[in-house]
C-alpha cells in the first residue's frame, strides 16, 4: 500500500522544466504544418510567420502600443472600479443578513444579463468614449469578486470569532485583525478571475463602439480581411490577461506568505 508521502507526490507530480513549453511548441508545430501543407487558405489560417510579421510591423509602427495602452487603461480602471464596488458591497452583504436577503436576488438577476446585450446601452447612455468601456469591464469584474468577498468573510471559523470576543476586541478590530486577513485567500482568488474578465469586458466594449484599443484593432483587421493582424491582436490580449493573472498571483503569494509559512 502506498504511503501518504507517495500519495502526496503522485497528486503533485514534479514536471521537468523542459516539458513546460511542450504544449505551446506542439501547437505551433501543428499550426506550421497545416499552413505549409496549404490545408487552409491564409485568409482563414495565416502562418505563424505571417502573424509574427504583422505583430512586429504594428509594434514597430507604434500602432500596437497605442491600442494596447488604450485597452490597458480601460482594463485597469475597470478592474479598480469593479473591485471597489464588489468589495464594499460584498462586505456589507457578509456582515448584514438583512442586506443580503434584500439585495442578493437583484444582484444575481443583474448578472444573468449578457454583457454583449447591455454593452450597446452603456455606449448610448455614457457615450462612445473610455467611460463606457471602463463600466463594461467593471461589470464583469464585479460578480466573482463580490461572491468571493462574501464567502471569504463568512469562512472565518466561529471559534476564532469567540476568541476575539473573549479578548474584548471591537467590531473594527475583529474586521481588520481577523476577518480581512482570513478572507484574503478566497478574496484574492476572486480578484484573479476578475482580472482576466476585465480584459474581456474592455474588448466587448471596444467591439460595440470605439476608436482605440485592441478590440477596435481586431474589428479594423476583420474589415480588411487581415486575419494575421486579428491573430496578432488576439495574442497580445492573451498576453495581457496572463500578465494580469500573474501579477495578482504574485501579490497573492506576497500577501499570503504568512499563511504558507
Amino acid at each position, binding site marked *: 500500500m502506498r504511503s501518504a508521502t507517495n500519495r502526496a507526490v503522485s497528486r503533485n507530480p514534479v514536471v521537468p522544466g523542459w516539458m513546460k513549453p511542450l504544449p505551446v511548441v506542439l501547437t505551433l508545430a501543428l499550426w506550421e504544418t497545416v499552413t505549409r501543407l496549404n490545408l487552409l487558405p491564409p485568409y482563414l489560417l495565416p502562418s505563424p510567420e505571417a502573424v509574427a510579421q504583422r505583430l512586429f510591423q504594428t509594434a514597430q509602427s507604434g500602432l500596437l502600443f497605442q491600442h494596447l495602452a488604450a485597452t490597458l487603461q480601460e482594463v485597469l480602471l475597470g478592474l479598480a472600479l469593479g473591485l471597489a464596488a464588489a468589495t464594499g458591497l460584498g462586505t456589507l452583504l457578509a456582515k448584514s443578513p438583512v442586506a443580503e436577503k434584500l439585495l442578493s436576488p437583484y444582484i444575481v438577476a443583474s448578472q444573468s444579463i449578457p454583457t454583449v446585450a447591455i454593452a*450597446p446601452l452603456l455606449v448610448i447612455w455614457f457615450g462612445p468614449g473610455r467611460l463606457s468601456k471602463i463600466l463594461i469591464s467593471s461589470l464583469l469584474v464585479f460578480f466573482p469578486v463580490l461572491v468571493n468577498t462574501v464567502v471569504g468573510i463568512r469562512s472565518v471559523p466561529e471559534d476564532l470569532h469567540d476568541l476575539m470576543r473573549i479578548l474584548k476586541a471591537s467590531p473594527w478590530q475583529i474586521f481588520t485583525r481577523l476577518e480581512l486577513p482570513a478572507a484574503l485567500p478566497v478574496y484574492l482568488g476572486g480578484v484573479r478571475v476578475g482580472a482576466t474578465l476585465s480584459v474581456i469586458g474592455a474588448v466587448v466594449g471596444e467591439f460595440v463602439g470605439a476608436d482605440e484599443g485592441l478590440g477596435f484593432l481586431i474589428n479594423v483587421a*476583420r*474589415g480588411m480581411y487581415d486575419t494575421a493582424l486579428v491573430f496578432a491582436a488576439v495574442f497580445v490580449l492573451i498576453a495581457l490577461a496572463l500578465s494580469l493573472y500573474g501579477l495578482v498571483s504574485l501579490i497573492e503569494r506576497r500577501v499570503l506568505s504568512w499563511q504558507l509559512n
Partner: protein
Amino acid sequence: MKIQWTWFLLILVMILSSACSTAAGPAETQPAPEIEDVRLILPYRPDVQFAPFYVGMKDGIFKRSGINLLIEHTQETDAVTLVGAGEVPFAVVSGEQVLLARAQGLPVVYVTAWYQDYPVGIAAPAESGIEGPQDLEGKQVGIPVLSGASYVGYRALLYEESLDPDSIYLDTIGYHQVELLLEGIEDAVVIYSANEPLQLEMMGMPVNVIRVSDYVSLASNGLITSEAMIEERPDLVRAMAAAFVTSIKKSMADTTYAFSACMEYVDGLDENTSSIQEKILQESTDFWEGETIGMSDPEAWQNMQDVLLEMELLSEPLSLEEAYTNEFLP
C-alpha cells in the same frame, strides 16, 4: 351512312389527337428545371431593404430558375470569407468588400449590381447649418465603425471634395447614430441615406442629408460569388443573377407589394413599425435605379479603387476586370 360515320369518326379522332397534343405542349418545351437548395448570405439581419429576395421567394421567381433560396445572415466580412472559402455560393455585400478581399487573396467576384448609387450619407440636424461637405470642417462626426461602407463612403466624400480628414473630428460610435445625434453628442453622423434620416424625422429631428452618391459614383451593394463557382457552375450563377434582376425589377415596380412580401420574412413588422419601414423600402429603391438593372459601372469600380488606394486600404491597384463581371446578366 357507313361512309358518313367513318368520316365523323375520323374527324373526331383528329380533333381528339390535336387536343391531346396541345395539352402535352409543343415538342420543344423545356422540362421544368430541377430545383436545388442554394444558400445566400445577407448581411446583419432580415430587413425590408432585402425586399427583392423576399419578393423573389414569394413569387417563385427563384424556384422557376431552379433555385430554392436559403437565406442566412451574418457579418458582411464573414459573408465574403465564406464565399471565398467555397462554403457558401452567394452573398450580398458592398463593392469595396470585393476589392479588399481580393487584395488578401480571397477569390470573390461581383456578378450582379443591385444598388446603382452608394447609399451612405451624412446626416445633420436641419438647423445645424451643415448642408454640404465643406460645412463638416471643424465638426464632430459620428461613424459606426472605421471600416466597411460607412467609412469608405465617408472618406470618398472627403477625397472627392478635397477635404482634409484631420479637419474633422471623427468619433467611432457603433450603430447608435440616431440616439447620439438626438442627444446632441455628435454634430453629424454617417448613415444609410434611406434609413436613419427617416427614423430621425420620425423622432422629431428633421435632418439635412449629404449623400455620397451626389458627389461620387462608387460600386455598391451587389451579388458576389467565387471564382470556383463561376468555373464549375456558370449555369447556377447565371440563373441566380437572372432571378435576382427580375426580383429587383418587380420590387421597384410595386413597393407596396414588395413590402407585403417582407411581412412574411422580417420579424417585428407590426402596425407601429410598418409605416416607417415601408418608407425606408421606398427610399431604398431610389438607390437601385439605373440604366440597366444589375449592370456594374466600370467608372464606379475605378472610383472605388482610387478611394481605397488613397485610404491606403489597398497597397496597389488590382485587376478590376477580375473583380466584377456583367457576363451573367440576362
